[in-house]
């Protein structure tokens, strides 16, 4: 074996306590952001989902066979599964076509939506009206900063589909936020 091969050989990225601890330390904040954006900003629920995801990942770590870069994607898959298993049934999300009416009903007093934090919360809440797959794409792309090809690989979809869905989702979010009275002036 050439020496550089020795230097590029990696051990299992999650196998032992130290490597998993490092993985947890490096990723848990982004995982939490991902969960918060997916579940509409409910903190306690997001903390539970994040914690459950890591505990489940620890339990099943030997079934993971990818690189350390792929480990985060694997963890997000676990997160999605937990969200679907535990919380989807409890929540009653409107269908895609019901978006505009629902947001109209929830329209807050325009005067209360002034600060950036509130706008950010409005955006996260508006995300919840997107269908699951598209919400996931938007969060991966804009909250976690993944590239389109990474998202396509992660969700096993063609890149083109992801691009088109992202574009549509942003338009939809834009319309929804406009109906809620969230504007550029208020974010300034």
């Amino acid at each position, binding site marked *: 074996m050439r*020496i550089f091969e020795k230097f*590029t050989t990696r051990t299992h*990225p999650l196998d032992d306590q130290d490597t998993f601890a490092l993985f947890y330390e490096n990723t848990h*904040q982004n995982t*939490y952001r991902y969960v*918060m954006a997916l579940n509409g900003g409910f903190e306690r629920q*997001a903390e539970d989902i994040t914690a459950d995801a890591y505990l489940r990942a620890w339990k099943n770590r030997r079934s993971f066979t990818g690189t350390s870069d792929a480990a985060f994607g694997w963890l997000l898959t676990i997160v999605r599964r937990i969200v679907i298993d535990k919380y989807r049934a409890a929540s009653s999300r409107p269908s895609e076509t019901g978006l505009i009416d629902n947001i109209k009903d929830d329209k807050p007093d325009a005067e209360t939506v002034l600060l*950036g934090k509130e706008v950010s919360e409005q*955006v996260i809440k508006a995300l919840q009206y997107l269908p699951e797959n598209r919400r996931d794409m938007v969060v991966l792309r804009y909250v976690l900063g993944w*590239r389109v090809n990474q998202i396509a690989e992660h969700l096993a979809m063609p890149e083109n589909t992801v691009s088109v869905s992202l574009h549509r989702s942003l338009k939809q979010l834009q319309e929804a936020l406009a109906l809620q009275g969230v504007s550029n002036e208020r974010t300034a």
Partner: protein
Amino acid sequence: MNELHEESINSILEHYSPKPGSRFYNRMADAPWSRKRKAVRFINYRQFVIGISSIFIVAIALSSSIPSVRAAVLKYLGLMVSSSETIPNPAIPAESLVDNQKVGEISKLAGWPVKVPTWLPEGYKFNDAMYDPSNRLVILSFFSTRSLPGNDPNMTMTEPITIVQALHNDIIPLMVAPGTSVVDIIIHKKPAAYVIGAWENDAVSGQATWNNTYPLQNIYWQIDDVYLTLNTKDVQVSKEDLIKLAESMK
């Protein structure tokens, strides 16, 4: 209505960074991989060892106060006894290429005896040693400051030599890309690698890409369980100098 632009939505999402609360961290402190949990176990073990050691030391001290017992104990332990109470003690060399106190502190943080050079290319002096706990690696830097052409003594340039060491090699400073052109060399009769090139980081994408054309000389090698790399872009330092420096590391 002045709608939120797509860019504004992107920016809001990009900057959305809630952080878990103490409830989450309290729960995670008991997780099977938690370092805190490990530390508590380690403290208990350490307290046990300290307790046993203290009892042993007290017993030795008591027995040493009786001359005949002391002689018997020393004989039993096979300890070397000096010829008198005062004997010559060769002085420890005052000069060192590194700040020994700092390297000692870094070794404690790192958990392994940090390797230091006993030879440096001409003009180089120890600059700093630091431990990066997130990547669990030690960085030693050595600077050479030279005057630039001209008569102004304030016009100088500084070239660094950087040595990185860790007990694992799955991090960027200690890795090369698969397509890197590697020259096999020998350090202390063991295989090592000499490489020209560098990782270039793209802060926007968060990706690092290996660049074969960047004029950085690197050596990668291993001493016992410690993986090391040293590098410099100083054109006055030759490949042979770097090998000699690597050979001098202890």
